[in-house]
C-alpha cells in the first residue's frame, strides 16, 4: 500500500508536538495488532513515548525491567529483530523475557531500532496476536518510518531544553563553525545537512557543551562520528 505509506510518512513528518500518537502511524501501514515507540538510554531516558494498547505497553515495560528482549537487541545491533513466532520458537535467547510472556497473546514481535547517524535513541516494537512474518517491503517501510520518528524524538528533546541554549551559540561566528562542522558530519555519515546539524546539537546536549565547542572538536578532527563508538556520553578531552 504505497499510498498509505506515503500518507503515514507525511503525517509523521509533521507530527512534532504529537509524540503520544506516534505509534498510530505504524499501525496505519503495517499488518500488526499493536505497536509502541520507546526511548532507551541516558540521552533521552528510558520511557515509552507512545503505545497503541496495554499489551504493547506491557511488552516495553517487561523489556525495560528485565534488561533483555527484542528492543534491546535491535538497539544493540542497529538492525531489525524479526521474531515470527516469539513465544514458541524464539530465534534468540531471552530466558527471562520468554518466561514473562508465556501466557500473553503474542505471536510475532518485530523490533526496529530508532537511530540517527551514530545516535541510538530507542526502538519501535510491533506485535501480532498470531504468528506472522513481515515482508521485505513492510520491513523497509518500518525502517523509513523509524528514521522519521527518530528525528522527531530528538527534536522534541532538544525543544524541551532550548531555553538553555548557550549564548555563544547564537552569535554569527559560532554559526560559521557549526555550518562547517555540519558539512563535515554530513560527509562522514552521508546524511542530510539538517540531520547532521541535529546530531551536532544532540551531542552538545548530551555532553553539556555548546554547539560551538562540539563544532570545534569536529573541525579539529578530534571528534568523528563515522569512526567513533555508539556512546554519546563519552568524553573527548
Amino acid at each position, binding site marked *: 500500500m504505497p499510498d498509505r505509506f506515503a500518507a503515514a510518512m507525511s503525517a509523521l513528518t509533521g507530527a512534532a508536538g504529537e509524540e503520544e500518537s506516534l505509534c498510530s502511524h505504524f499501525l496505519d501501514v503495517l499488518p500488526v495488532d499493536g505497536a509502541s515507540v520507546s526511548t532507551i538510554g541516558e540521552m533521552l531516558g528510558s520511557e515509552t513515548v507512545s503505545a497503541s494498547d496495554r499489551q504493547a505497553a506491557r511488552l516495553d515495560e517487561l523489556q525495560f525491567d528485565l534488561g533483555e528482549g527484542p528492543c534491546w537487541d535491535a538497539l544493540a545491533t542497529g538492525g531489525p529483530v524479526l521474531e515470527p513466532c516469539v513465544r514458541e520458537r524464539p530465534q534468540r535467547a531471552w530466558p527471562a523475557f520468554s518466561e514473562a510472556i508465556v501466557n500473553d497473546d503474542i505471536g510475532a514481535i518485530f523490533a526496529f531500532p530508532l537511530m540517527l547517524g551514530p545516535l541510538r535513541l530507542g526502538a519501535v516494537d510491533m506485535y501480532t496476536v498470531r504468528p506472522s512474518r513481515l515482508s521485505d517491503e513492510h520491513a523497509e517501510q518500518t525502517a523509513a518510518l523509524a528514521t522519521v520518528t527518530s528525528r522527531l524524538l530528538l527534536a522534541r528533546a532538544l525543544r524541551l531544553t532550548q531555553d538553555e541554549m548557550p549564548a555563544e551559540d547564537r*552569535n*554569527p*561566528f559560532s*554559526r*560559521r*563553525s557549526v*555550518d*562547517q*562542522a*555540519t*558539512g*563535515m*558530519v*554530513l*560527509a*562522514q555519515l*552521508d546524511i*542530510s*545537512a539538517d540531520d547532521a546539524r541535529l546530531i551536532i546539537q544532540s551531542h552538545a546536549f548530551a555532553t553539556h557543551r555548546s554547539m560551538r565547542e562540539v563544532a570545534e572538536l569536529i*573541525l579539529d578532527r578530534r571528534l568523528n562520528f563515522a569512526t567513533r563508538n555508539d556512546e554519546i556520553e563519552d568524553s573527548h578531552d
Partner: protein
Amino acid sequence: MIDTTREERLIETFTVLADTLVAGYDVVDLLQTLVESCSALFDITAAGILLSDTRGDLEVVASTSEASRLVEMMQLSAQAGPCVECFTTGTVVSLPDIDDGPASWAPFRESAREQGFASVFAIPLRLRETTIGALNLLRSARGELRHEDVRAAQALANVATIGILHERAVTENRTVRDQLTSALKSRVVIEQAKGVLSHTHGISMEEAFVLLRTYARNNGRMLSEVAERLVDRTLRI
C-alpha cells in the same frame, strides 16, 4: 606612473564587476571578487564584507582570508568596533590608529593587534537611507587611507550593494530583507560545502574554499550552486 597603473586596475575592476552584474552571478562570488580587488587596489592587508541578518546582527559573507581568526576579529568589530558603528551611522568610520578607539572596543582591538593590524576603515554598504552592511579594510600600518582610496572603496561598496539587492530582483518582487537573507543563506551552504570538502579531501577550510571556487570557475557554475550540490551529495569533487 604608479597612479596610472592603479587607475587602470581600478577601471579593470569596475569592468569585471559590471560584466558580472550583466551576466548571471552569484552574490557571494561577487563579494569575494570585490574584497580581493580591494586588497589588490588599495594599500591594505585584509578586507571583508559583513551583511546584517534578519535580527540586525552583522555577519561576514566574504573576506580576503578564510582564516578563522580573521573572521572572528571582524565579528568582534561587528559587536563593538568600527564595523558596527559604520553600520549604525551609515557613514565611513576611520580608525588610523586602532589604539585610539573607545574602551568598549577592547575585544576587537586585542584581536586586531594580535594579528598585526594597526588601522582599520569601515565603509557602509548603503542604498539611499538603508544600510545593509559594511566593507572593512584593515592595514598593518598606522595612518589614514588616501582620500581617493576611500572614494574608490565607497564606489566598490556601492557596486556590492547594487549587486546584492539586484540579484533576482529583476524577476522576482523581493524586498531588501529577502535579498539579504538569500545572500547570508548561500554563505551557510558554502560553509557546509567547505566542511564536506575538508572531510573528503582531508584539507583545511581555506584550501576547501579555494577548491570550491576553482571548481565553480573552471566549470562555469555558480559558487552557491556547486556548494548546494556538494551538500545534497549530488556532486562529488
